[in-house]
């Protein structure tokens, strides 16, 4: 059976202008949600989600239809998030360097708590805020897997396909992720 995604991709490749926005509509909430959970910030999540679809459009020729479209797009999104998290870490580091000794101000705390956008404020204080805090405590490689497994409900096989990692690695990381969160949350 041909999936909706496959039909849309055929139409896009044929030059049907209406097909790509349909594909975006189909995946925008999923991709935005993953980016939001990975980054914990609405503005960055929107930028990364936008960039994900632009890359999908630009690389559609390279998409291998033997794999599920969903795993391909999740891979693009998580890779972009991980890149950004890495850059963010580097910039915090370089700020630390330049601000060293700045009258005892704890820059680390300031940087770790950027201004919240309107949406973040809305969600703050919800039970959700606790979930995000717990997710943020994980390193990116565990974070992506826990999000895909428990927030996006992907199977272990799908995660293995999306992240191009052997299933044994996925299992090990899920085990460690669960243990780390249990400790963090005092469950």
């Amino acid at each position: 059976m041909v999936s909706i995604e496959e039909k849309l991709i055929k139409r896009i490749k044929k030059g049907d202008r209406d097909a790509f926005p349909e594909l975006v509509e189909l995946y925008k909430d999923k991709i935005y949600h993953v980016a939001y959970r990975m980054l914990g910030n609405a503005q960055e999540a929107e930028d990364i989600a936008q960039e994900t679809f632009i890359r999908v459009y630009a690389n559609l020729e390279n998409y291998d239809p033997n794999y599920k479209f969903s795993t391909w797009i999740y891979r693009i999104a998580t890779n972009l998030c991980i890149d950004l998290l890495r850059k963010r870490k580097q910039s915090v580091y370089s700020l630390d360097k330049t601000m060293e000794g700045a009258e005892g101000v704890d820059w680390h705390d300031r940087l770790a708590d950027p201004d919240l956008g309107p949406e973040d404020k809305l969600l703050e204080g919800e039970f959700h805020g606790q979930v995000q805090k717990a997710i943020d405590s994980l390193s990116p490689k565990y974070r992506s897997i826990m999000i895909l497994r428990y927030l996006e409900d992907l199977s272990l096989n799908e995660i293995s396909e999306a992240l191009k990692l052997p299933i044994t690695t996925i299992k090990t990381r899920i085990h460690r992720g669960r243990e780390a969160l249990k400790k963090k949350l005092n469950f």
Partner: protein
Amino acid sequence: MNCHQANELIHSYLDEDLTEHEQSELKQHLCQCVDCRTHFHGLRQVIVFLQSASHVYAPENFTEKVMAQLPKDTMLQVWKKRLHRHPLLVAASLFILLMAGSSYSLWADDKQFLLTTPGPEHLQINSDKNIVIVPVNQTVAGDIVIRNGDIKVEGTVEGNVVAIDGHIYLASTGHITGEKEEISQAVEWVWYNLKQTVMNLTY
């Protein structure tokens, strides 16, 4: 079974990865061992906790923003796509383009601001800046064609909007029931005219 082995099985159980035999072995251990039982419940709680996360939805106009950022097709791609969709039309228009240089010169000479609309009284026209606005709450019944200028649609156009060598800005309040097309090349102008002619002939 020791507690370390039991913990391995607990994780496999949570991944739905246990044989029936292993399950009953694990069950047995959990019945006897309070520590492992507590640990098991804790891990289950982690999962339920994560799954309780409220879903976050993409912000408004997300798709429009993506579409606005996509690279505009090159002329070659445009022609390829059209050739795919309207092979006869493209062949015919290319033929005309090659045969008659006159359409091109007509295009090249013609740089003045031009507006065709069935309802000019509904429009705000700023001829200094070459911009036409369809104001909020105004409805224009019919097609609008503008050349060498921009059009901003804040109200409704019940028809097509075409900007030749100009841009169409659709405000969040705006609505165009028909097609919305920006034409910026002489070749496209020929194509567009040809399409109109053929459409007039066929409908």
